[in-house]
């Protein structure tokens, strides 16, 4: 079942051209929504103003090579491994959702543009199904167990929370109905119903970028890159330095450190990070 190309079956009812047109329309909706979102929230303006302010406080100028290295680190840590999440379960759920989404979207595009008229599509149908499963796993985990305000704001799993939930609802219903559509292939009305729901959820997900938090996947990497740059150029957004407590210069400047903690202070443990936040 995982190796079946669902779009081959679909091509007998809907022309590949129409499918391709729909994919292009969704891409345009995402681009348009993101631009409108940026204009409305003035996020790009904020980034540039922040960068300009930080430049004034910078203790040194970063070279091109250094910036490229920071960009690589950002891609390796924040983008590919979601390192900005301090909560491990949230990070794992995010990784399942993110990779599932990317694999699902890319394999959908490949199947529609490359294999809509061929039953045998190599590894792509498997990737399509696995991407959808991964997206469902990460998405439902988030919806039922991680939604951060479940306890503090009294939001139950069945409460739909308007704009805050458009993105995640689109994100979990799209692969759910996609899988159900694929599984019920050839069962007539039920299959058609799932296909309609699949398209409806995909349209909600990609068409609501302006109102949802879809655009975070574009500005979060930019924010992470900027955060690393601010640390590297010494401006640090006015934050204190990361002191090395074993450094004799630091110990001379702050004599309380060697006096109370010794010249080689031990690891003091996780402290507040030992307990995950439970909201009351």
């Amino acid at each position, binding site marked *: 079942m995982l190796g079946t190309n669902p779009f081959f079956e679909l091509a007998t009812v809907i022309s590949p051209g129409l499918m391709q047109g729909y994919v292009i329309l969704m891409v345009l909706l995402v681009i348009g929504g993101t631009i409108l979102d940026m204009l409305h929230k003035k*996020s790009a303006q*904020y980034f540039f103003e922040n960068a300009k302010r930080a430049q004034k*406080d910078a203790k040194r100028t970063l070279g091109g090579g250094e910036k490229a290295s920071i960009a690589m680190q950002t891609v390796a840590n924040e983008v590919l491994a979601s390192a*900005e*999440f*301090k*909560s491990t379960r*949230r990070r794992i759920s995010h990784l399942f959702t993110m990779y599932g989404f990317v694999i699902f979207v890319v394999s959908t595009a490949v199947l529609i543009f490359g294999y809509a008229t061929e039953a045998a599509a190599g590894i792509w149908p498997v990737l399509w199904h696995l991407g959808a499963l991964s997206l469902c796993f990460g998405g439902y985990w988030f919806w039922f167990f991680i*939604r*951060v*305000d479940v306890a*503090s*704001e009294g*939001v139950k799993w069945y409460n739909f*929370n*308007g*704009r*805050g939930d458009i993105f995640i609802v689109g994100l979990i219903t799209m692969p759910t109905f996609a899988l159900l559509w694929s599984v019920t292939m050839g069962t007539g009305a039920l299959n058609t119903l799932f296909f309609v729901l699949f398209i409806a959820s995909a349209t909600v997900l990609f068409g609501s970028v302006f109102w949802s*938090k879809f655009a975070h996947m574009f*500005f*979060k990497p930019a*924010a992470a890159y900027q*955060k690393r740059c601010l640390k590297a150029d010494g401006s640090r*957004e*006015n*934050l*204190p*330095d*990361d*002191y090395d*407590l074993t450094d004799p210069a*630091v110990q001379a*400047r*702050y004599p*309380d*450190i060697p006096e*109370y*903690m010794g010249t080689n*202070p*031990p*690891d*003091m*443990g*996780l*402290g*507040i*990070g*030992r*307990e995950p*936040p*439970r*909201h*009351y």
Partner: protein
Amino acid sequence: MPTFVYMTRCDGCGHCVDICPSDIMHIDKVTRRAYNIEPNMCWECYSCVKACPHQAIDVRGYADFAPLGHSVRVKRDEEKGVIAWRIKFRNGKKDMDLLAPITTKPWGTSIPQLRDVPAPTQEQRNSELLFNEPKYIRFDDGDLHTLESNGLKMVEGVEGF
């Protein structure tokens, strides 16, 4: 002046929600990021600022120890056991760095055992003073407390300490 959250830094982890003694740090339902729901009620204890793992919370401080427009930022590093403060004046020239060991007791190890504390006497009950009123602010044992009467002296600048 109260705390505020840099939305691009916050990941909605909820540490500030847990630690806020006034219960005013909440998670926004739309953006899933923390925000101060009742700025009037914030007494600037800096608990959330120190608890935030991303340094995403900041405070616009009063003019009580630096002229308005200054920046006071703090980084509490539990693993190193130190807390670092940086106070920068609005002219950008006065820029102070402070570093000190964390002196609070480890989390959950210092729960007051009030049942073991002797009960207040009738005289204490009738007194207008609070239970355990700090001695430096008491007025009932003679004159007004001053630095001099307590054997302390003023030192210029924060670095002096």
